[in-house]
């Protein structure tokens, strides 16, 4: 149930610790790493074929929500599923993220099983589509 296929995932997160966490938790997935929204847009322009995006909210230079808005207004990128993973856990923050187009919102700290459940659901939907 909780296996992660070899997919390409963009991780947008300003914490090196959390990048390492995804690297360990999602192996053998290929990860593209960005430390803010601007860097993530640059990565996406070079590799738009990512299967999904894991996105933090509070980051320097360009926040997660600003990045998400840019992704959703770009027809070439708008269909990429985005999972928000953030320490912002207030209901209004969650609602804001989901309204902006994220498919799921996971609060930090999180368990590996919870992330993998979301990833599996995304993969199931993608294979059904």
């Amino acid at each position, binding site marked *: 149930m909780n296996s992660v296929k070899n997919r390409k995932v963009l991780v947008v997160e300003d*914490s090196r*610790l959390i990048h390492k966490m995804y690297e*360990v938790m999602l192996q053998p997935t290929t990860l593209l790493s960005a430390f803010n929204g601007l860097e993530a847009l640059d990565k996406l322009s070079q590799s738009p074929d990512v299967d999904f995006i894991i996105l933090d909210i509070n980051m320097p230079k360009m926040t997660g929500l600003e990045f998400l808005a840019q992704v959703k207004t770009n027809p070439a990128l708008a269909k990429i599923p985005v999972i928000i993973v953030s*320490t912002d*856990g207030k209901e209004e923050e969650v609602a804001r993220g*989901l309204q902006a187009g994220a498919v799921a*919102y996971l*609060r930090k700290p999180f368990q590996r099983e919870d992330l993998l459940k979301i990833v599996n659901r995304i993969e199931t939907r993608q294979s059904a589509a």
Partner: protein
Amino acid sequence: MSEDYNMTDPPPVADAPAGRDAPARAGRDAMATLRRAQQLVSDAQAAIEEASRVVGQGGGAGPAGGAEARLAVAESERLELTGRLAEVEHQVGRLMTLYVATYQLHATLDPAEVQSTIAEIVLNLIGAEQFVLLLIDDEDKGYEVRLMQGEANSRWEQTERYTGGDPLVDAALLDGGLRFGPTEESPALAVVPLRVQDLTMGALVILKLLDHKPAFVKEDHDLLDLLGAHAASAIFASRVYAKTARKLHTLESLIRLVNRG
């Protein structure tokens, strides 16, 4: 459809293995156990399919009854194994977290980066919104406030040096034991002494958790234990390295001066 996941109540798990290499070693063991459990679930699934096939083909009441009984047993085994698999997966996730925290703490010899990693662990893996990091001053052996995250309460706001006064912090610094609060005299939710051998290098004082995290969970205790040992040794190593690098730089400057003269 959008989904909202909130982790506040994970299932109970066993205690963390002791020792510095334990997270990596235990992680490997847990991965092997996970693979075995996945194989068992897969075998049980195959047995159920086989039993279903036999039931489907069965003509008389006798053989079909026997096959149904085997099917029920296989289904029961499958449920049990699925439960065990979920437990093992949870354990693997927990060990991964401990491994990553340990790895990242020792990934640098820059004291500022070590402090930053401690802050990342406390915020992202434990879910603390307000915390203070006290570290020993090598010269006068007092404790400096080296890091303050969030809007700490008035006791800490204007403090650059900790001179005592919070009973939980004082006790943890004195005997090196982990303390949990709050108490009438202390607002601290947890005080983690950072110890290297017999020296208490400082303490991590957690004052408030994130709003969506009502209390510490079992995994947090493992992480707090890990921080107590590994954060201290990472800070100690980075300080020794920084001191040595400074001395080396001074010596090199002196040698250059002598050579010029």
